[in-house]
């Protein structure tokens, strides 16, 4: 888990550098300070590479979850860099990539939608009796959407093997959580769906793992959906252009002192589970892996423009714009 957190942080740092160098056209989002929540919860799932394992759908701040569930820095960077080799062929932005063999379901931007989709995925698991589990991530802000309500209610009523992770990270863009909801604990939102809700220290990667493992076990045992709130903090702005002046410095300092990676490092050392040298080596490896991925992705081409007409339907070819034909004539359409 420590390596996965380091890898998430290193890869995002690498992404930021690439962005500053002008290689990334779209928005760049950081999960700084939330790596423990992402890695710990995802660690409770069964990964696979053949499409038979558990499934997750993640959002912009779940880099750690993606890597934990088998996604690789190269997938992540190719996607941000819009490479032809990316899992969407450069068509989709940021982390919006899907890799069914690994059980990774990429989101669309519209928050809440993926809760509905994951309800359906896990409903299919239940129908087929496959014993698989699905996990969906969403922010404090995202849980204000009607889609969250309809999706989680569906999963609850249908007793779908689904774990809903709500990431309470203080803000939705600039909006503090108390402007999103009047509840003090997002875990309380479980009550309205008649499912268990638990709150956990999101910067304690082990606690996150343990709480998620309980919810996953429940789901796998046929006991239906549950909700897990991970309490953490977004230590960077919403995206790279957001200086987050609206966040009081004390709040930032408070959470910096509780960095999930630092905390786990201290624990590993304190319990004698690892030596400082081993941890340094992990850090070095994480940087190396993300650096190599960046180099590889950078070397790969962008997609060919004229392929923009492809992949709209499984069975219909769309025309190229008539103005780009050799003999431009709309009759040819």
């Amino acid at each position: 888990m420590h390596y996965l957190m380091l890898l998430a942080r290193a890869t995002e740092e690498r992404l930021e550098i690439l962005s500053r160098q002008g290689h990334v056209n779209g928005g760049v989002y950081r999960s700084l300070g939330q790596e423990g929540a992402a890695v710990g919860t995802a660690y409770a799932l069964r990964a696979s590479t053949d499409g038979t394992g558990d499934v997750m759908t993640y959002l912009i701040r779940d880099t750690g979850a993606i890597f934990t569930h088998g996604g690789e820095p190269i997938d992540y960077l190719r996607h941000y860099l819009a490479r032809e080799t990316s899992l969407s062929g450069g068509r989709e932005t940021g982390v919006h990539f899907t890799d069914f063999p690994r059980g990774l379901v990429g989101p669309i931007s519209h928050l809440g939608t993926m809760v509905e989709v994951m309800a359906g995925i896990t409903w299919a698991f239940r129908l087929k009796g496959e014993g698989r589990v699905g996990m969906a991530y969403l922010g404090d802000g995202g849980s204000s959407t009607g889609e969250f309500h309809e999706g989680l209610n569906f999963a609850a009523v249908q007793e779908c093997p689904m774990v809903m992770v709500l990431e309470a990270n203080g803000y939705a863009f600039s909006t503090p959580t108390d402007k999103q909801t009047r509840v003090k604990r997002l875990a309380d939102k479980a009550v309205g769906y008649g499912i268990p809700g638990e709150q956990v220290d999101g910067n304690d990667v082990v606690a996150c793992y343990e709480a998620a493992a309980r919810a996953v076990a429940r789901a796998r045992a046929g006991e239906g959906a549950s909700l897990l709130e991970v309490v953490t903090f977004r230590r960077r702005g919403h995206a790279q252009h957001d200086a987050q002046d609206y966040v009081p410095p004390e709040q930032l300092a408070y959470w910096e002192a509780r960095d999930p990676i630092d905390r786990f490092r201290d624990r590993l050392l304190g319990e004698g589970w690892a030596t400082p040298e081993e941890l340094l080596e992990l850090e070095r490896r994480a940087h190396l892996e993300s650096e190599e991925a960046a180099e590889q992705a950078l070397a790969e081409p962008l997609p060919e423009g004229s392929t923009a007409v492809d992949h709209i339907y499984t069975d219909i070819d769309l025309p190229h714009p008539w103005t780009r034909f050799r003999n431009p004539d709309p009759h040819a359409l």
Partner: protein
Amino acid sequence: MSTHHARTKGRPGHVTKTERGEPVGFLDAIAEGLFEEMERDERVVLLGEDVGVYGGAFKLTSGFQGYFGPGRVFDTPISESGFTGAAAGAAHMGLRPVVEMQFMDFISSAYSVVTNYLATSLWRGAGPMPVVIRGPVGAGGRSGAFHAQSVEMAFFHTPGLKIVYPSTPRDAKGLVKAAIRDDNPVIFEEHKLLYRNPKLREVLPREDYDIPIGKARTVRAGSDLTIVSYGRMVHLCTDAAERLDVEDGLDVEILDLRTLLPLDVDAIAESLQRTNRLLVVHEDTRTGGIAGEISMRVNERAFEWLDAPIARVTAIDSPIPYASTLEDYFLPQVEDVITAARYLAAY
């Protein structure tokens, strides 16, 4: 599927009419198509409000739950977005869901998930999206602004979707089967005034058949004028054509689009080449109706064949009114089609 439920009941009567050689109405034809596909392919599942125990507001799926079990046919909460999104998720996992909207008017609550998620799945690299969203549409039954909408133009502008809107039992059955077999999301509109219209009953082929999506049908061949229409209006146009034949000696060709997206421009252009006059008739409201796209396509493909402007007969740009007097004025009537045809013929 491991949860394959024991069949507690036999085949419901309304889906075995073809087997028994009986003529089949519009609603039963759709039910037959749906039922046969569910028998043929256990990945096909059915969800929506009241589709299970009750068999749907129009009883189209009556007896389906008893036959296929509550795993494959089930009642959802009132959550059009939620269960449509869930259908998408189930499709990711290899199922082929058919979603019923109790009234298609309520698909508006699922507008985001349909246009942003289902329609883009293949393109986003998330694979095919074999989901059919079907339900009753259409005005004329005094059901007001929220139980009678036409929904085609809400989705016509969304690449990735297909939109089907049949007008006869034969087409409805063949097209619902084609829609279920399609790997792209399909919006399937069923005019509720056709459901139990006794005039439409017809004996259907006993063998399995489908009707290809994307192909119009020539309802009536003619040489003086082409009318392009779809859904209930096809029958109105047929009535008008018969009167125009008798009263004016006009030989009207009628094309039933059957599929709205993709649009069968080839069929329209081919017809126009012979008739040189085009009238589009749709029940949907005027501004932004499908007549516009047809007009644009004809300009691109067949402008030189036009001997008169393209004309349209449509509903008024208004929500659908409840009072009979208002609804009748709001909707296209046979007289409107006749008047427009005469105008074009005389042009």
